[in-house]
């Protein structure tokens, strides 16, 4: 059987890819996709821990389902924001969206 650490390494790698995407992409949609990756990395962790450490307790799976729902909602809101920004500025370049500046 595949040991737990493999899953964790894979999840960590996935997470790092997500982080990189979030930090490095200029396209806002790309950033959103990075966030999805990070969330899914967490989901992998949750399911792996449940399967290996507490198979009797379904909390891990339930958490993973919650995360999926939240991710879906987040994607909806995020995309809506992006569309709104696009309509306003004709661009979704994250470098140019600095409305929160002082």
């Amino acid at each position, binding site marked *: 059987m595949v040991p737990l650490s493999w899953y964790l390494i894979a999840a960590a790698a996935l997470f790092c890819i997500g982080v990189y995407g*979030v930090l490095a992409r200029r396209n806002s949609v790309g950033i959103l996709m990075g966030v999805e990756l990070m969330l899914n990395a967490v989901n992998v962790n949750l399911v792996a821990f449940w399967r290996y450490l507490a198979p009797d307790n379904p909390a891990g799976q339930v958490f993973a389902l919650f995360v999926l729902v939240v991710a879906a909602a987040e994607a909806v809101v995020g995309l809506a924001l992006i569309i709104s920004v696009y309509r306003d500025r004709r661009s979704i370049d994250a470098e140019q969206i*600095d409305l929160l500046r002082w």
Partner: protein
Amino acid sequence: MTEETLVLLVWLIPALPLASFFINFLFLRGRDRAAHTVAIGAALGSFVLAQIVFWTAVGQGGEHLAEHPIALSIPWLPTGLTTLNMGVLTDPLTAVMLFMVPIAVLMIFIYSTGYSNINKAPDPHDEPGYAPHGREPLYSRFFGFLSLFAAGMLTLVVADNILLVFIGWEIMGLCSYLLIGFWYARTYPDAKKITPRQAAVKAFMTTRVADIFMLLGIAFLYSQTGSLSFREIFTAEATHHLAEVLFLGIPAAQVIFMLLFIGTIGKSAQFPLHTWLPDAMEGPTPVSAMIHAAAMVSAGVYMIIRMYPLLAGTAHEGHAPEFAPMFIVGAFTALFASTIAVAQNDVKKVLAYSTISQLGYMVAALGIGAYVAATFHLITHAFFKALLFMGSGSVIHGVEHGLHTAHNRAQLSAKAEQVLGHAEPPAEHGEQAEHNHGHSDPTAHEPKMDPQDMFNMGGLRKKMPVTFWTFLIGGFALSGFPLITAGFWSKDEILADAFKHNQLVFWVLALSAFLTAFYTMRQIGLTFLGKPRTEAAEHAHESHWTMLLPLVILAFFSITAGFVGVKSDFPGLGLLINGPFHAEPVSPFEHFLVPTVEQVVHFEPLFFNIFPLIVSFMVALGGLFLGWWVYGRKPLEAGQPDPLAARLGGLWFVLKNKYFIDELYNTAIVQPTNRLSAWVGEVFDRKGIDGVLHGIGNGALRMAEAFRSFDTSVVNGGADQLAESIKSFGRWLREIQTGRVQNYLLLALVSVVLLVALYITLFS
């Protein structure tokens, strides 16, 4: 009338003039007729009340009144275990004063309306503070002051304790200052002549010196007896206690009395503090009458008469107490002042010195124990001296009027000459122009001739008949013209007492009585007899009726007031006045007055003695005759010097200059005091106290400067620096607020990584 009502009346007697003072001062400025109506109304009220009290007292008789005086006192000032009471007391002595004072006050008030020219319109040239030619500009103020003066005197008379006496005493001191200096702006061309302002200060300062001693006496009395109330002090017990306690080997009673007597020396102008009184003549004449007759100087004598029982314990058995300092000072002053009066030319100054001399009489009389005679003379003297002063005021008024008439006529004739084209005198022209345009300077308006100098008068008998005859009555009363004048009876009684108790005092007083008669006749001769010596006297005319009415009334009292003092063993008259059957010689006045002090003082009966009576006759008639011989027989011509001047030579010069006492005081006291004050002011005040103060001030200033630099640099600077650095830090820090989501995320990530690293290093 019940006791309570009577007491209320007594309270009201001083209260009415006091109310008049406040009303005049607060509401009646510039409303002249209302002002004198209120003042005279109050005086009249006091007079009526006083008369009611007096006649009730007479009805009750002296003995009853002395045992049951009309008195009421209220606790006024709690002092520790005891309480100072304030109240009124009407015993026989107060009653006789209540007869005299309000009459004199009322007469003076009525006279003042005429003297302040109520009958004339205000003159546009007149300014406040100068002697007026039209109606007095400060009319209501004058009546206000006079009212306060009267209130002070009446307070003193009805007081039942020495403290209230002192209060009235000081009110009068203030009023004398205000009234002597009433024409405060007046100056004279002769720089040596004292101005009203200086005279006021002099009077105030001189009496103040004496008042300090009096206050010491009161304090000593209080420390010995624990009370200031007459009724508690004048008991056999208290007076014996006072006589037994020794202070520096002298009985306390005598020490206290001496201190109080010094107060009288100042107030009643006895030697050596007499110099203020002649200068007080600078005030308006009603004021002089007020000071010399109704109030002030009488108050001095009244006070020692009132306090006389204090000495009761020091007397020999069966005798009235004597007090040597008093008869020495009194007799000396009587003679001393009458010699000066002989050589004075100012009509009011003569009377001033005569007042000093007569007060000396009273003081000397009290000093030898002639309690009744001193009081009697106080009363009669007040009447005829008020009369004489007001008479002299009337004369001055008449002469001043004459001066103006003469002045105006001279101008008119000068003008007429100019118009007719006659010789044109340029000097007069200039003077006239100056006169016409001299509105701003009232002194330019002031006549050049002295209207008070008797040598500028003469012949006024025809011009001013009422003034002349009343003045003659007053003068004769002052001289002691035998049998018909009040002055004779009181003076004779003093002389008779003196003859029995102290021969030296008797002869000194007799000599001064002779001089008194002489200078009185000299005054009458110079003023009224012969022909007018100046144009002013030529044009003088009789005064307004308001000035003459008081003269006539006082003339009446100057004659009749004497008869109450006729003793029962006086040949003829005594029987007529007193009726028969008297075991001991007594007069109605004595019978009424003596019970005041009879509980503690025992007077020995004074039997009729022909010798002092003869002396009294001789000095009065002799003095009058000599005066007439020198000044009346051949009245002086204009410009003729005083015939006595040549006869007396150097002595005349000394008398004329009042024994140089003023000069002596000036050199010995006034100037050293001024120099000392200047020195103290320069060295002690300016260099010492001011130096210390300036030093402290400068030190504080320097310290404050140091503090300020600390404040600006450290406190302010520190706070500013802190704020600045926070500001620049913030400015630097806000750079991270880029607004780009990715920067924030990166920062968050780095922070998380660092925190995790920290956690791991710390907890593993």
